[in-house]
């Protein structure tokens, strides 16, 4: 640094030069135009709805469940749900599963096992809708078996 000092002094002595001191203003218009164009492109092309997942589990073996514990929900191809539990059968429209779960939990003394049974000609979308509703109703672990989805309410494996 010290060696630089005399050089600086020498330049000072030449006197101030107006042209050097002037503020440099390059024309940024083109740059900003392109930047904004790219910005708009990226904003428009970004998709925010990335897919989400539902965790599923299939049982390794099979365990018998006492019939008194089972709430069977048969999804019919037309979307109607045939629900049998505690010796009665009701037909439900989709969207009323929360009520069914509440009633079954009250009626069945043991841990109710909700068995969702979808025939092979039922649309997959319907099955997912029913599973989704069951999860919203507080049914947690999902055990899927062949055409039967067994959903175990509250705790413990029962299938």
């Amino acid at each position: 640094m010290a060696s630089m000092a005399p050089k600086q002094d020498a330049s000072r002595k030449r006197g101030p030069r107006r042209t050097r001191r002037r503020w440099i203003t390059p024309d940024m218009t083109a740059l900003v135009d392109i930047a904004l164009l790219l910005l708009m492109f990226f904003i428009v092309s970004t998709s925010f709805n990335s897919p989400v997942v539902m965790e599923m589990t299939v049982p390794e073996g099979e365990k018998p469940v006492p019939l008194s514990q089972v709430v069977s929900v048969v999804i019919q191809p037309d979307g109607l749900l045939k629900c049998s539990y505690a010796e009665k059968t009701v037909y439900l429209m989709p969207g009323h599963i929360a009520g069914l779960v509440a009633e079954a939990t009250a009626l069945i003394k043991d841990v109710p096992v909700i068995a969702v049974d979808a025939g092979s000609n039922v649309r997959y979308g319907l099955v997912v809708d029913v599973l989704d509703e069951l999860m919203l109703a507080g049914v947690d672990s999902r055990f899927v078996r062949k055409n039967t989805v067994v959903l175990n309410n509250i705790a413990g494996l029962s299938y």
Partner: protein
Amino acid sequence: MPKIKKKRTGFVLDMTPLVDIAFLLLTFFMFTAKFKSDTENEQKFVIERPKSSADTSKLGEKDLAIVKIAIDTVNSDTSYYYSISNEDVRAQVYQAIPTIPADAKAMIAVDSATLDRLIIETRLASKYKVKFAIDADKRIEFKWVADLMEIMRKYKQTEFQFVTDKEGGGL
């Protein structure tokens, strides 16, 4: 005497903050942008995913095997499509199965017998680390999914994921 006209000057607006923010947003969107992968580019179908609202966990990207069940847009045939995200595992699996051509792409259309082999080979090649996801169209019949679940169960792949779209979209 004519008035001395003051020379008009075009008014200058300080654009610096605007440009600062624009660049900030630009860099943000550039870094978050996710471009279509090769697999997505090759596919000749659009999967209409079922909607779900209960679960919110995102689909992973690493060590994932995706079985897609989709309806072809041209001849409206339903078929299984298989893809593995991990390239090393993919190469090993493809080598192990003689029916798959050597120049097979990242995602291949398969029948259920090949799918059976693919699942067990993937399990072995990845030392049981790969997660499985079923990405099925909501219009297909459940038997496609049920058959696949039966294969998974046979090979003790008891955990997997159903890929869905979040209800109502959003972030």
